[in-house]
Each structure stands twice: as structure tokens, then as C-alpha cells.
């Protein structure tokens, strides 16, 4: 493993133009993410956290500043980055197997090797026997696992989770977050989770980045050190320090309703 940062975000700003005027979405964000690290980004709604993720994914170009992954400037979507959307977004007309191959198909990388890897992932995470089923035949948690395998199948270095669990009900959400976190650490992936759920952010990540209101800037970065028996998100929630982090971040978000 390399010691240097996998992702370098340098003085990133973003402005959106609309007939009503221009909106400064992000102001001067600098952040480094190490290989194998799990970083959560929280912020008040509309602070531009999804915009930040879209820029890392190469979907939109920053107004100024740059993003480097593996020392290379992001110019557009690459296979270095895997994106997990809100809710699973499985294609209901494709079987589980065809859903998993979607990214490889788009990148024209379906071959013996990549198919083998996808099969291995399905087997490892208990979905191989469902490969010929359609998404509607699977439970919410299983669908989320398929979505993660679809992202992992292109073998990305960096995973971007955009409010990835927000469509699930609370109980399922806890279990799925647990599973996803374990899979990500077993596969040695670096991950960035954008969420509005403070507890989820703390329980999953090694660092929590708090953004200010629009234009989003970094307000604080918390290094999360929890004393818990197992390093799983559900167990982490039981740690004594958990509520201290929660209260601190809650105050920083400065929510007024």
C-alpha cells in the first residue's frame, strides 16, 4: 500500500448559473484522503456535498481548483471511481448478473477475468444463487448489496456513496450500512460517504468532515476514535465517545428550523 493520499482536493470552488442568478455552491475546499480510509462528509442541506461528490466522480468540472486521484487530475468519469447512488437504482429489466456487469459493459471490459471477479464477489456475499433473478425478487438489503457489487465489479480505487442508504427504512439501513462497511474494508477500498445522518457518518468513518452552509467550506474535521469491541458501525454506536462526537458535530451544523 502506498502511503501518500489517494485523493487530493485542492482549493476547489464551484458556482452554478441559472436565470435567477449565480449560486456559489462550494468555496475553497482542500482535503486529502488516504488510501484505505473511510471519510464521511456531513453538512446542512444544500451545502454542496453532493456537488463535491459529483466533481470527484468527474461528472461536473470545478469552477476553480482541481481534484487529483493517484496524482492524476480528474477530467471526466474514470474506472478509478465507483459511484453508489441514493437507493440501489438496479435496472429492473436486467437480471442480477446483468446488473452486476453493467459498469463493465459500459467500459467494454467484459472478459473472462472481470466476469470471474464479479462471480467471486457474488459468491462471497451470498448472491450467486440469485444471479438469474430480477431485482424485484430480492429484499431491500440484498438489492443494496447487489448495487455495491455492481460498483465493485469495475474494481475502482475509490468508492463514492451519495446518501447511499437514505431510501431504506431505519432498521434495514443500520444492517445494510454494517454490511457495506464490512465489504468495503474486506475489499480494501477507500470510501467517501456523503450523508445528512450524523450518527451514520460517525459510525462508519475514520474521519468526519463537517461543511458549512452554502457556499460549502470545511468547518471542521473530526478524527473518530471510538472504543468498541468490534469495529462495525452498529457496535460503534454503543461506544461511550459516540454521543460526544454527535453533540459536537450537531452544534457545528448549527441547524435552525
Amino acid at each position: 500500500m502506498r502511503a501518500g493520499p489517494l485523493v487530493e482536493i485542492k482549493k476547489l470552488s464551484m458556482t452554478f448559473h441559472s436565470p435567477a442568478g449565480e449560486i456559489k455552491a462550494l468555496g475553497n475546499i482542500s482535503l486529502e484522503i488516504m488510501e484505505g480510509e473511510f471519510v464521511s462528509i456531513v453538512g446542512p442541506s444544500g451545502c454542496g456535498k453532493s456537488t463535491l461528490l459529483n466533481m470527484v466522480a468527474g461528472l461536473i468540472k470545478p469552477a476553480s481548483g482541481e481534484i487529483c486521484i493517484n496524482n492524476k487530475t480528474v477530467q471526466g468519469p474514470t474506472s478509478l471511481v465507483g459511484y453508489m447512488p441514493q437507493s440501489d437504482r438496479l435496472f429492473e429489466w436486467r437480471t442480477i448478473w446483468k446488473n452486476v456487469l453493467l459498469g463493465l459493459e459500459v467500459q467494454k471490459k467484459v472478459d473472462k477475468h472481470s466476469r470471474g471477479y464479479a462471480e467471486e464477489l457474488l459468491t462471497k456475499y451470498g448472491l450467486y444463487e440469485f444471479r438469474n433473478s430480477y431485482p424485484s425478487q430480492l429484499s431491500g438489503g440484498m438489492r443494496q448489496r447487489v448495487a455495491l457489487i455492481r460498483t465493485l465489479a469495475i474494481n475502482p480505487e475509490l468508492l463514492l456513496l451519495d446518501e447511499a442508504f437514505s431510501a431504506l427504512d431505519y432498521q434495514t439501513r443500520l444492517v445494510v450500512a454494517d454490511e457495506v462497511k464490512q465489504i468495503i474494508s474486506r475489499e480494501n477500498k477507500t470510501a467517501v460517504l456523503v450523508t445528512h445522518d450524523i450518527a451514520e457518518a460517525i459510525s462508519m468513518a475514520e474521519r468526519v468532515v463537517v461543511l458549512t452552509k452554502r457556499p460549502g467550506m470545511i468547518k471542521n474535521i473530526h478524527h473518530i476514535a471510538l472504543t468498541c469491541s468490534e469495529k462495525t458501525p452498529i457496535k460503534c454506536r454503543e461506544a461511550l465517545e459516540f454521543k460526544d462526537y454527535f453533540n459536537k458535530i450537531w452544534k457545528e451544523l448549527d441547524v435552525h428550523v
Partner: protein
Amino acid sequence: MSEVPTPDVSAEHREYLRNRKLYRIKIVAAQALLLVGIIILWEAAANWRLIDPFITSQPSRVVKTLISLHNGGDLYRHIGITVFETVVGFTLGTVIGTGVAVLLWWSDFLSRVLEPYLVILNSLPKIALAPIIIVWIGQGMTAIIAMALFISLVVTILSVHSGFAQVDTEKVKLLRTFGATKIQVLSKVILPASVPTIIAALKINVGLSWVGVIVGEFLVSRAGLGYLIVYGGQVFRLDLVMTSVIILAVAAAIMYQSIVFLEKIIVGQRH
């Protein structure tokens, strides 16, 4: 939806299932009775001269006409021609309409430029174009098919294009993060996600195509069910008109059910 009661089904549930079945049988029976009732009333009223069968025809005359058309050998030619024109009409309408919708999806500029024209064309009663089509294309089957096509084309373009716009943007975004090109977005998400919309358009087009074909046959043809109807009207043979209308109703119903069946095969697999 299996109705077979399994051993562990409670008496209450069996009762519920039985009532449900009974209710459905009642509906079907009432439907059959309604049809039979109308036929009997129609026949009786004509026999008792409550209505004039010369103007209203009557079921026994319809059957006689049907038999003589069958014996004359012309019946199936007329049905075949009309059905063929209709099928070609709605198939072309759906395929060309979807094609144009793809172009509009591809170019936002084009879709914005053409929008007011499409809206006006959509609200225009296409039958008003019939004389123009006949002058331009000539009298014959091509003009009839063109009529059926024009009637369904614009509404297909509009509904399929708006279907494309309603495809989940997060799915499109997901594909784009994989680095998908525009043509891949089209082929892997926009088109497959819009299959139900396209089939819905197809179902509407079947009905519209019948309208186009019958109007076309009224105006120009020398064969087909529309021709039989208009000919029967001109020579005051209401038996022929009624018989043709009934055949038309049956043909249209069969065609619609075939499309519903096709829809079940294509879309059913997703659920």
C-alpha cells in the same frame, strides 16, 4: 393468484375465496346476458315491426349477410386488407414516432425548436389532412396507410419523448459515472426503461390507426371494411353496414387483446 385452497386454509378464508369467485361469475353472467338480451330485443323488435329492419337491420339478417359474404369469398379479402392497413399504420406510427422522439431526446435544441409545431400538429384534427394526403399520394392503399400513420405519429412522438424525460435521472447519472457515452445512455437505460411507455403508445396507436384506416377507406378505397360500410350506406343496404361494423368491432377487439398479451410477455418478466 392460485385459487386452489391448500389444506391449512381456514374455513373463513375458503368462504372468502368462494364469495370472490361467485362475484366474478355473476359479472361474467351479467355481461353475457346483456349481449344476448340486446340481440333478442333487436331481433324481436324488428320482427314485430317496432323498428324498421330496412333501416336498423336485425341479427338474423346480419347472419345471412355474413354467410353470403363468406360464400362470395370476398369477406376475408376485405378483412385482410383493412387489418393489414391498420397493422402497418400503427407499427409505422410507433416505430417512426419513437425514432423522432430519440432525435428530440438527443438534441435539446431541436426539441425546443420543434415543440410549438408539435403541439399545434397534435391539436389539429389529422383527418383534415386527408384531402391533402390523397392529392399528394394518390388514391389507394398507400394513402390510407399514410392517414393511419399521421393520426398516430405526433401523439407517439410527444408521449414517448416525455417518457424519455421521466426516466430516473439517478440511473442515467450512475451510467455516466461508469463513463457511458450518450449512445450507451440511450441503449442501456433510456430505451429499455421506456419499453412500458412505448407499449402504452402502441396501444393508443392501435385505436388511432383503425380511425385513420376507416376514414381513409371511406374516402378512397375500393376494398376493405370501411369501403363495405360506406358502400352499404350509399346503396342503403344497412344489413351490410351493420355486419361490417360488427366484424370491425370483433377485429379491433382481437387486435387490442393481442397487444395486451404482447405487453404481458414483454413487461411481465420485470415483475
